[in-house]
C-alpha cells in the first residue's frame, strides 16, 4: 500500500528544508528595506508630495513603487535561486527525486513557499504605506481600502514573475546561471518603456514587468479583474511548463 503525500503538505515539507538558510530573514530584511523607501522619501522631501492633489496612496505609489517593486522582484529572484540551490548543492534533489513524490509536487511546494514569502515584504510595505498616509496626509483619510486593494493587486502581479523565476532556477543546476539570468531579466524589464498604455497593458502580463504596474493606472474595475485573471492563468501555464520540462528532462536523463 502506498500513501501519496498530498500536494497541500508539500509547502510545509519544503519549509523545513529552508531552516537555517536565512530564507525568511532575507524576505524580512528585503521587505523592511522596501518598506523604508516611502518613509525615507517622505522624510526627505515631504513638501514635494504633500503639495500634490489627489489620493495619498496614489501619490506614494507614483513616487516609490518603481523602487519597491524592483526590490520585491529581486527578492523573488534570490528566493527562487536559493530554493533550488539547497536542492542542487548537496544532491538533495537526487534524494527527493528518488522518493515517491511527483516532481511537480516539489515545484508546487516551492512555489507555495516563494509566494507566501513574497507576502512578507508586501505586508511590510502595506504597513509602511498606511503609516505614511497617516503621518503625512492626516487631512485626507479613508485610504485603507485603496491601499489593501492596491497591494492585493500587486501580489497578483507578482505571481507570474515568481513562477517564471522558479521555473528558470529549476532548470539550472548552477545557481550562478539562474541568478545571472534573473538579474539580467530584471534589468531589461526595468528598461522597457512603460509610457504608451496599449504596450504597457501587454507588458503587465510579462513576468518581471508586471510587478511595476499599479492598480490605479488601469482604466477600470473590469480591466483590473481581467489583468489579475490573466496573471493567474499565466502562472498556471508556467507550472504546466515546468511539468512538461520535467518529463522532457526525464526522457533525456
Amino acid at each position, binding site marked *: 500500500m502506498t500513501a501519496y503525500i498530498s500536494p497541500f503538505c508539500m509547502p510545509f515539507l519544503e519549509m523545513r528544508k529552508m531552516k537555517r*538558510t536565512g530564507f525568511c530573514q532575507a524576505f524580512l530584511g528585503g521587505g523592511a528595506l522596501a518598506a523604508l*523607501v516611502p518613509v525615507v522619501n517622505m522624510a526627505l522631501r515631504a513638501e514635494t508630495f504633500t503639495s500634490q492633489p489627489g489620493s495619498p496612496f496614489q501619490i506614494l505609489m507614483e513616487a516609490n513603487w518603481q523602487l519597491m517593486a524592483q526590490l520585491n522582484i*529581486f527578492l523573488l529572484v*534570490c528566493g527562487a535561486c536559493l530554493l533550488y540551490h539547497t536542492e542542487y548543492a548537496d544532491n538533495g534533489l537526487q534524494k527527493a527525486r528518488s522518493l515517491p513524490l511527483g516532481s511537480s509536487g516539489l515545484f508546487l511546494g516551492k512555489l507555495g513557499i516563494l509566494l507566501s514569502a513574497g507576502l512578507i515584504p508586501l505586508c511590510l510595505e502595506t504597513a509602511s504605506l498606511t503609516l505614511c498616509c497617516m503621518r503625512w496626509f492626516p487631512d485626507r483619510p479613508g485610504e485603507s481600502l485603496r491601499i489593501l486593494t492596491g497591494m492585493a493587486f500587486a501580489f497578483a502581479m507578482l505571481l507570474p514573475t515568481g513562477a517564471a523565476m522558479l521555473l528558470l532556477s529549476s532548470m539550472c543546476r548552477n545557481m550562478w546561471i539562474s541568478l*545571472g539570468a534573473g*538579474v539580467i531579466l530584471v534589468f531589461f524589464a526595468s528598461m522597457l518603456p512603460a509610457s504608451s498604455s496599449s504596450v504597457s497593458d501587454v507588458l503587465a502580463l510579462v513576468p518581471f514587468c508586471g510587478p511595476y504596474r499599479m492598480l490605479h493606472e488601469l482604466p477600470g474595475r473590469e480591466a483590473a479583474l481581467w489583468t489579475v485573471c490573466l496573471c493567474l492563468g499565466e502562472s498556471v501555464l508556467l507550472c504546466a511548463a515546468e511539468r512538461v520540462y520535467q518529463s522532457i528532462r526525464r526522457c533525456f536523463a
Partner: protein
Amino acid sequence: MKTEFRPLTLFSLFGVELLKIRRSKIFLILLIPAVMMWLPSAMNANVNFLGSYDISPEHNYFIQGYMGMAWFMIPATLIVCTVLMNQTEISSRGLVKCLSLPVAAWKICLAKFLVTVFLTAVQLVLSIMAYYGSAALASGLYEYDFVLPLPYVCRAASLIYAAVIPAAAVYWIIGVLIRTPIFSVGLGLASIVPSVLMLNTKVWYCYPMDYPFYMLMTEYGKLVPELFSAKIELVPMVPIGIGTTLLCLTVACGRYGAAERNSGSL
C-alpha cells in the same frame, strides 16, 4: 633548494590572484553586460533624434547608453565578481591552504581587492570598445555619425569607472563578511536599487553606490544644463569616498579568513 625569504610583495600576490581566476569565466561576466548594453542601443539609435532636450543625437546616444551601465551594469558586474572570487576561495577551501602558508591574510585580501579594481578597468576598456562598435553600427544603420571623439569618451567613461571604487570596496566587504553567496549578491543588488532615489536627495554623497551615476549626470548636465548641475562637487564626495574605501578595506582585511580560523569543523 630554499631561496632567501623576503615577505611577498603585494604586486607578486596580485599576480598570484590573477592566476587563480584563470578559466573562471570572469571575463565573460565583464564582457556580456558591456555588449548587452550597447547592442540594443545601436538598434534603437533613432530615438536619439526625438529628444526633448537641446542635445545632439550622438551625445544623447552616449549618455543614454552609459546610463544603464553606470546605474546598474557596472555595480552588478562588480558584485558578481567580488562574490565569485570570495566563493571560489570558500568552496574550494583554497583559503585554508593559503592561511597555512607564510603570507599575511590581509595581504591576500588586499591583493584580491586590487584584482577587482583591475577587472573594473578591464571592463572600462571593454565598454569603450563596445561603445565604438555600437556607435559605428548605429551610424551605418541610420546614416548619421554617432561616433564621438576618443578623448571625450575615454575621459567620461574613466570618470564613471573611477567613481565606482568606493562602491567596489563596499561590495568587497559584503562579499567577505557574508558567506552565503545568494545573500551577498542579494544585498549588493538591493543596494543598487535606491541609488537613483538617493541621487535626487541633498545627501547623495552619503551613498557611494550612486557616485558613478552622479558622474554621468554631471556629464549630462554639461550638455543639458537645466537637467542636472554640471559642476562636480568634489567636497564632500571625495573625502567620503576615500573614507568609505579605507574603512571597508580595513575591516575586510582584518576579518579575512576569520571564519576559516575559528571553524570547529574538521
